[in-house]
């Protein structure tokens, strides 16, 4: 005969105490193991060395932030405080096992990215240097990627404003483009670049007409100058005649000079009477020299003269 179930009692489950005990023990073990795991992960069971880093600002760094060396976490910020000098002090616990990476010559940096929090990094170039002592205080070099953002934003705003001004409908660039389009259209027109340069087809037409007239004129001038019996040949013939005439004059004058010399010698005793003849001779010689000079000039002025040399008697 089974005992009646008391009122308000839960339903009966076979082996309930054993099952409940198993679940409870399992849960308690899990809780204890997890708590120990978390405490160990937080470094409670490790011997730590304290390091104090000094920075201008604690922005981005909080309790629990990591100190990394070569990308590996070697320490954790356990306290952040404001120093007497207004600087931020990061108290960092570094496990003794990891402290070997920190040397007296180590450099510490605080880098703030655009996304995410700040990161504390340690750099030890000389691993043979003495170890960093406990409770060491070091300054932090700050590299802030976001610090330049406001300046960048201002620059971008100015750039956008300039672009808007440049691309506005009434802007100088728009007017220049209109002019360029007109110039391009003129280039593609009937008179091409000439029409574009002179500002219209009318002017270009006049220039073309002027050029045609100039060509005609040049053809006529060429015909008159360089055709057979043209001005050039006539000028050459005239020059030849002039040269011959001058040569004859020079000969005649030479003869007159000889006659005068003879007359001067014959009438030496009548010097007084022939003094006028001396003056006359001097005049004739002067005239002869001027004729010679004139001949030389003519030879220089007419490059087709073949004989440049002039011999005086």
């Amino acid at each position: 005969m089974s005992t009646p179930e008391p009122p308000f009692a839960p339903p009966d489950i076979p082996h309930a105490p054993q099952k409940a005990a198993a679940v409870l023990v399992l849960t308690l073990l899990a809780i204890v193991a997890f708590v120990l795991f978390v405490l160990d992960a937080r470094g409670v069971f490790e011997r730590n060395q304290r390091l104090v880093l000094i920075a201008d600002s604690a922005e981005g760094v909080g309790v629990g932030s990591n100190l990394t060396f070569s990308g590996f976490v070697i320490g954790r910020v356990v306290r952040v405080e404001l120093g007497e000098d207004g600087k931020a002090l990061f108290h960092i616990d570094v496990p003794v096992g990891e402290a070997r990476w920190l040397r007296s010559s180590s450099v510490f940096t605080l880098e703030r990215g655009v996304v995410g929090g700040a990161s504390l990094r340690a750099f030890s170039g000389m691993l043979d240097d003495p170890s960093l002592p406990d409770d060491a205080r070091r300054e932090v070099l700050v590299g802030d990627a976001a610090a330049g953002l406001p300046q960048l934003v201002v620059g971008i705003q100015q750039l956008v404003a300039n672009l808007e001004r440049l691309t506005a409908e009434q802007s100088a660039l728009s007017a220049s483009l209109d002019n360029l389009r007109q110039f391009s259209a003129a280039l593609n027109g009937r008179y091409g670049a000439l029409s574009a340069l002179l500002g219209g087809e009318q002017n270009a037409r006049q220039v073309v007409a002027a050029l045609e007239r100039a060509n005609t004129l040049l053809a006529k001038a060429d015909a008159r100058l360089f055709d057979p019996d043209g001005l050039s040949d006539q000028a050459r013939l005239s020059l030849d005649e002039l040269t011959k005439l001058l040569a004859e004059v020079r000969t005649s004058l030479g003869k007159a000079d000889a006659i005068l010399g003879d007359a001067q010698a014959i009438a030496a005793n009548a010097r007084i009477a022939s003094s006028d003849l001396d003056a006359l001779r001097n005049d004739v010689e002067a005239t002869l020299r001027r004729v010679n000079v004139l001949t030389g000039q003519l030879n220089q002025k007419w490059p087709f003269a073949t004989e440049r040399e002039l011999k005086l008697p």
Partner: protein
Amino acid sequence: MTLTAALSPSCYDRPTRHGLAAMFCLGAWQMLPGYLLGCVLVGTVLTHVVAVTSASYGLSHLALEAVVRVLVLELLPLAAALFVALRLAPLTMQRLARPPGAPPPGYRALLPYVIGSAGTVLVLAVLGGIGALAVAYVVVHGLSQWALADYARLIGQVFDPATAIVLTFKLLAFAIVVGLVPASVALESDQSDPLPRQMRVMAYLLALLILIEVALLILPRL
């Protein structure tokens, strides 16, 4: 008074212990496999989604921390409380409903329901959370052992003292609410229609759970 009785060892006589063990079996023992399976599945999907999304933004180093904070600290405790409420609260209300004119049960009779439900919430939340932590590691790092140190450091970073205290308080609050609220039907004398009363109690329970969740999300940041 029920809570006071729960803290008194003298209240745990043999029938009470037996009833408590039965409630534990009904809750924790029977629900644990299904709940753990659900945690593993949800944890796998959520971790994968967060890991892939964060990797696409170049923030994969934040994926595990996000999963731990969202899943283990927020979602799974609430899910455990809701699971237990759906499974044990109807049973509790049904067993504690008294016929018209009958005297209310003593506090000792309430203890198996209150402590059984509350303990089940704690068991499921703790084991489900630990399971989700393991699943998140496996999803992100595979079965490699070399990321264990970083993962341990991350968990240690997430479970700082303040967070641990808030989580503990949240679990205890969920457990107390899930244990006490269904048992409150035993104190009501109006036994006309049990169904609307049970629905009202369930709605009240759900509102309290959400209120606790929201309050513990906001209060630590004030």
